[in-house]
């Protein structure tokens, strides 16, 4: 019997009382305090109090950087469906965050990967990109091992 796969929807949001972290939805005046949303099929434990969010950026040469962000989780709520069958998520987690700024220290994370999965598994599209792209030096091109089902 195989272990059921989990698929968590994790929302990081600012506390109601926070002045920062609020923005409007694109094209409207409606406000949201959602900072990040993660989609997790890894099976890892849900976030814990004290977890600090990270932020990222990319340079012109394609090098990615990340840094510790200015938000820290200080309350975690987990919501489980009554019947986790036929639904997108097996768990919804809300992480309430407080603003706790730090000095930005950017750490290089290398260049992004391009593989057949960058094209949704379309081998033809991947091969065409490899043959015609003029900016391949901004990426790390990876061939997926033969044993991996597409």
């Amino acid at each position, binding site marked *: 019997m195989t272990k059921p796969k989990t698929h968590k929807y994790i929302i990081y949001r600012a506390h109601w009382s926070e002045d920062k972290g609020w923005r409007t939805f694109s094209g409207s005046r409606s406000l949201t305090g959602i900072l990040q949303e993660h989609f997790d099929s890894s099976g890892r434990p849900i976030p814990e109090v004290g977890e600090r969010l990270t932020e990222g950026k990319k340079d012109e040469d394609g090098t990615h950087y*990340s840094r510790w962000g200015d938000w820290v989780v200080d309350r975690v709520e987990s919501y489980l469906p009554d019947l986790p069958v036929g639904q997108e998520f097996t768990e919804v987690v809300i992480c309430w965050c407080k603003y706790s700024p730090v000095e930005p220290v950017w750490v290089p994370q290398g260049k992004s990967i391009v593989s057949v999965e960058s094209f949704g598994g379309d081998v033809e599209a991947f091969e065409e990109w490899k043959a015609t792209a003029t900016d391949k030096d901004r990426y790390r091109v990876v061939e997926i091992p033969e044993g991996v089902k597409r």
Partner: protein
Amino acid sequence: MTNPLPLPNDDETIHSAADRESCYKMERKYGWRLKRIDEYPDAPILKVDCVFYGDAPFPDYMEKTDND
């Protein structure tokens, strides 16, 4: 303000992709955690970066599923 310990240089694994859906497909297929999708509308083909938590390598082998 006291800074936390430095981030490791494998804090994130980024896969560039032609569309958002490819990010979700990778997350589900390989059991990764998708942190965010960064958009680059001016990019010629690979218009999004799928940012995954930690080290997210492709496996050497995957078992066939019940759908095969």
